[in-house]
């Protein structure tokens, strides 16, 4: 019998991480017909119909939650689909994905929320749609936020664009308080960033590439903090990239505002000196910023200012990247490297405790989205990731299973390898 068809799974002798309580302990986990049926030492397994996973020396974590992913479906299925994106996610140990609405058409109606939910029924992991805040992401007319939240949206975002009009943003914030879902905010002053290709600083000047000032992000974060203070909205600043942003959010939190934020693994990993290669996979938005900003982001994670780590997985065809720096599209894929990239920096270099780090990719984003995920609990469907934290691997283009290959991490040596992923109660990925 093929191991994927077997009904029961036994994960032996792993270091179980409980990110909610910041604890770890060695134990077995028994999964019976997809449901967590036992968490204790020395579980004796029956002979038949069981897959055994030897997790000795590995950590066993709740499946990861990536709250910011572009699945490109519908509309750009040549770059990624719900099906291929989910396969890439579970290869990265991710069992819950929130997908962004900048598809074609934009996810701004009930029928499109239903499309995503129905199409992801058979996907390898759980997929939850984030709906647009404004119709067609135009920044003008507010979407049917009530209908969309009842249909299953987990949040609202005009990711990729942002809302320039402060009046519209203020009304969105006020209206959102009726439904309790987070507003996931892409902070960019388009007038200021227009035409920019990389972070504005020493390297943009040296390379003759048009700059995107960190101020273009800071001014919008400042505006939205002011609007949130008045409206009482629950706001979540996504892909934070500047030192100024970290400082403002820290103060806003101290003040007691309902604000959270996340950072991508590539903003934690790279600084703008990498752009000297003119490698278009480093062309992302917000841009990879200076070392000073990167260190502030690392500090923000360690201090607890930053609540979650995301991939901002943004697939693009080779033809969109294999061109001059100016013409290339913005974005890097990230689902398959999210854990290893962030782990290498935060636990490898910065010596952060593993349960605290795992918290940022499990329970913390789950709490922001208000979903039940990121835990291993008796009687619940199993979503579990087993990781060999000692394994080191050089990232190669050929190793990606995402439909697109535009990874900024190609050529980097990363620590931490996903051994296997159990998603929706099934063993969906096992490394070779």
């Amino acid at each position, binding site marked *: 019998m093929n191991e994927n068809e077997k009904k029961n799974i036994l994960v032996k002798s792993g270091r179980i991480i409980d990110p909610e309580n910041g604890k770890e302990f060695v134990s077995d986990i028994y999964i019976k017909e997809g449901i967590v049926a036992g968490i204790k030492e020395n579980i004796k397994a029956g002979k038949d119909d069981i897959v055994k996973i030897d997790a000795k020396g590995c950590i066993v974590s709740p499946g990861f939650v990536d709250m910011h992913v572009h699945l490109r479906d519908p509309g750009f299925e040549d770059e990624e689909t719900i099906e291929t994106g989910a396969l890439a996610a579970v290869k990265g140990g991710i069992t819950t994905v929130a997908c962004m609405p900048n598809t074609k058409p934009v996810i701004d109606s009930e029928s499109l929320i239903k499309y995503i939910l129905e199409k992801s029924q058979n996907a390898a992991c759980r997929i939850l749609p984030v709906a647009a805040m404004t119709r067609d992401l135009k920044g003008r007319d507010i979407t049917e936020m009530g209908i969309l939240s009842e249909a299953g949206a987990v949040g609202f975002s005009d990711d990729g664009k942002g809302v320039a009009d402060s009046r519209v943003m203020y009304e969105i914030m006020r209206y959102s308080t009726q439904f309790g879902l987070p507003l996931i905010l892409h902070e960019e002053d388009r007038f200021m960033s227009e035409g920019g290709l990389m972070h504005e600083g*020493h390297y943009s000047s040296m390379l*003759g590439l048009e700059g995107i000032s960190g101020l273009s992000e800071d001014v919008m974060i400042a505006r939205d903090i002011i609007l949130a203070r008045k409206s009482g909205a629950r706001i979540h600043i996504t892909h934070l990239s500047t030192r100024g942003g970290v400082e403002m959010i820290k103060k806003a939190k101290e003040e007691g505002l309902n604000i959270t934020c996340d950072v991508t693994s590539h903003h934690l990993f790279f600084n703008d000196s990498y752009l000297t290669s*003119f490698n278009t996979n480093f062309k992302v938005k917000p841009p990879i910023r200076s070392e000073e900003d990167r260190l502030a982001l690392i500090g923000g994670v360690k201090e607890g200012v930053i609540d979650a780590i995301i991939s901002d997985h943004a697939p693009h065809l080779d033809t969109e990247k294999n*061109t*001059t720096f100016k*013409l290339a599209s913005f974005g890097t894929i990230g689902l398959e490297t999210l854990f290893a990239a962030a782990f290498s920096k935060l636990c490898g270099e910065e010596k952060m405790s593993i349960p605290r780090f795992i918290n940022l990719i499990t329970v913390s984003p789950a709490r922001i989205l208000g979903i039940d995920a990121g835990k291993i609990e008796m009687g619940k469907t199993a979503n579990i990731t087993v990781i060999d934290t000692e394994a080191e691997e050089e990232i190669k283009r050929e190793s990606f299973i995402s439909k697109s290959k535009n990874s900024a991490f190609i050529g980097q040596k990363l620590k931490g390898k996903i051994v296997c992923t159990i998603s929706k109660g099934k063993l969906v990925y096992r490394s070779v």
Partner: protein
Amino acid sequence: MLGKKSIVDTDSLSLEDIKLILSNADSFLEISRRDVKKVPTLRGKTVINLFFEPSTRTKTSFEIAAKRLSADIINFSSSASSLKKGESIIDTLKTILSMKVDLIIIRHSDSGTVKMIDRFVDVPVINAGDGKYQHPTQALLDLYTIKKRFGRFEGLKVAIVGDFLDSRVARSDMDLFEKMGMEVTIVSPTMLLPEDYSKMKVKHRIDEVIEDTDILYMLRMQFERQDRKFYPSVMEYNRFLTLNMERLARMKSGSIVMHPGPVNRGIEITDEVMDVGGKLGEKIAIEEQVTYGVAIRMAILYLILG
């Protein structure tokens, strides 16, 4: 011969390479002054002038340089906008490489494109200007002009005046000039400078440097091309940055004026200064730059292919 076969940026040129190119230029300058301006050095070699951005001076200069060395040079011009995607740039290159060429000279409107191409092809590549990034042969001919005028580099004071932000010439010049021991000051308003210029020596008015400068290097100011950061007006420019007769007269003896060309008369340099004769006229080295440009490019082609 050169340490590197391709010339993509000034940064990767070693001091030895620079000295070698400059010393070779002397003999090629002599050839250009002969009645029969041709030597058989590169007979049988094929060079492609691949220009994705319009150019008259640089293209012609390379063409003359190649022809004086008896290489076969073929011009291939294409506007970058008609080749929307880089895939087609690479396809274009594949086509050209299939015809077995020995060297490609490239100009492109996007920064970093020549570096990208150099990684992709296995014949030598010369950057004839890419976007706002680099224009190394211009910087070398500028250096040669200075060498011919002053006979030395160490300690010379250079002021580069104008739009630093958008200038590949300024980037390349500053790098090479500093490498040769010259003191470089940038004279530019805030919006035409990098966001953080704390590590550069910067002044905002030409009057602050005019009397104490050996080389006044005027950059092209293209008002019509400004798309992100706007300088207020030509009048404002004239007030603070233009070289006029009064300022020219205050320059110290032996000092010179350079410009990568073509000059926007009335913007960087006034009509009167451009047409001035006599003692003051001797300061203007702009035509020499063009003459020396051919010699420098002959030297480079020779050192790569010879």
